[in-house]
């Protein structure tokens, strides 16, 4: 065993013993988020942007738009493209290079929360059916990884969209206009550590979690996306309890993001 593994083993024991008595390593309640800080409009070269911090985790999202062609099977819809970069400055375990499976999962999970909730009405981004549409690039940069990057990325993506102005004049397509955001999906991530389930896992909790479940809830309390991760499993009751907790937590977080 390396010293790192021993520390991890000790930490795991400690976190588990705390959990048995209903406590978390940083003193939070099981259903309590760390402080969430949202800042919009941080990048002036972007069509829309935001910076979100959840505890020590920091994400920046920039929206860029360009003209392009629609996909053949959706000729009357704009194109939404989501990417995620796990910057090597964000964690000693992130490596420079093309997006790996972790970055791809983050991009796709964030994309689904936005896309499947209908946050953006892609039909409004169609300019000329079958020929010309707006392409919206939603690029997520994780800059500091201190646990729970799924939620930070999703809040930041939503905030950046809320901040986006379609740069029509730059492309000789008339006046610029605000991008309309139709739905406000909020993702909430839960980690299962032995027999306890915590929301917004910190880095230590993320590192030792057995299972992870991310649930996205819209403003009508409907489920819009879910993603289970890691090798652990959830019982049916655990899944239901998680969804109920998510439905309780979503409104307050949504308010913070919308009003930032």
């Amino acid at each position, binding site marked *: *065993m390396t010293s790192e*593994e021993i520390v991890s083993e000790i930490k795991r024991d400690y976190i588990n013993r705390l959990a048995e008595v209903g406590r978390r390593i940083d003193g939070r309640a099981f259903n309590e988020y760390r402080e969430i800080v949202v800042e919009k409009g941080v990048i002036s070269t972007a069509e829309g942007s935001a910076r979100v911090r959840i505890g020590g985790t920091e994400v920046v999202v920039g929206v860029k738009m360009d003209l392009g062609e629609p996909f053949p099977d*959706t000729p009357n*819809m704009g194109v939404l493209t989501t990417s995620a970069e796990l910057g090597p400055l964000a964690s000693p375990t992130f490596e420079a290079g093309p997006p790996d*499976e972790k970055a*791809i*999962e983050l*991009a*796709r999970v964030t994309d*689904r929360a936005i*896309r*499947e*909730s209908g946050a953006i009405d892609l039909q409004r981004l169609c300019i000329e059916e079958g020929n010309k549409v707006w392409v919206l690039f939603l690029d997520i940069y994780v800059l500091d990884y201190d646990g729970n990057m799924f939620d930070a990325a999703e809040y930041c993506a939503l905030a950046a969209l809320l901040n986006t102005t379609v740069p029509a004049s730059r492309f000789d397509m008339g006046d610029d206009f605000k991008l309309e955001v139709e739905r406000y999906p909020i993702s909430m991530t839960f980690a299962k550590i032995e027999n306890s389930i915590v929301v917004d896992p910190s880095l230590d909790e993320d590192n030792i979690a057995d299972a992870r*479940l991310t649930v996205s809830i819209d403003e009508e*309390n*409907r*489920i*819009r*996306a*879910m*993603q*289970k*991760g*890691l*090798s*652990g*499993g*959830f*019982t*049916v009751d655990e*899944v*239901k309890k998680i*969804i*109920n907790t998510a*439905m309780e937590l979503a409104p307050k977080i949504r308010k913070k993001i919308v009003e930032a």
Partner: protein
Amino acid sequence: MGIKKEGIKLINEDGLRIDGRKPDELRPIKIEAGVLKRADGSAYIEWGKNKILVGVYGPRELHPRHLQDPTKAKVQCRYDMASFSVIDRKRPGPDRRSIEISKIIGEALENVIFTHQFPRTSIDIYIEVLEANAGTRCAGLTAASVALADAGIPMKDLIAAVSVGKVDGEIVLDLVKEEDNYGEADVPIGYVPRTGEVVLLQMDGDLSYEEFEKALNMGIEACKKIYEMQKDALKRKYVKVATEIVEEVE
């Protein structure tokens, strides 16, 4: 979930779906274990029009060495769609979708494998989708479990998987392609019957809490049926092997 097209009716007045199934009815499923010569374990599944082949290698030494885990085997899964498995040819090789699916299937399978018995090794699962018609990740996971068992890798149970969805406002089991394209929600579920745990779970679309609950229950009931088919496939394989041995001895 795609965009609902006006005028497309996915459930008819008799409550039957476009391929004639009832809402909680599975497509026909055929599983065969031990179909490949070289792989340590293998399985072939036909699930509706899905045709999927799985080969398993391992536990085997993991290279390069610095990727080895001294405490357990590394479960590595590669889900791949053949270029001709879909109507619009897919470029060979992994895309973002297949990388994500490989990751979540691999994580699910790690749940049931006794990885700690094989430190420093890898257990490699290769899922090749030869023909696709919605539900390939669940069919692939179902077949991969059988292939792992066929390889003799110690497991605490098999994983059975199925997708549940919402179509024309109704919760239905095991979506076919048109339902996946024009439906309102899709919930792939991977289930371990012996522990009652959900080990694969995704969802996209639009579901109320009650709808989700119904979908989850419907999926788990179906997984129990699929589980029986998986065990049958393994039994048939062992009977066949045993028969061959007996014949050889005679």
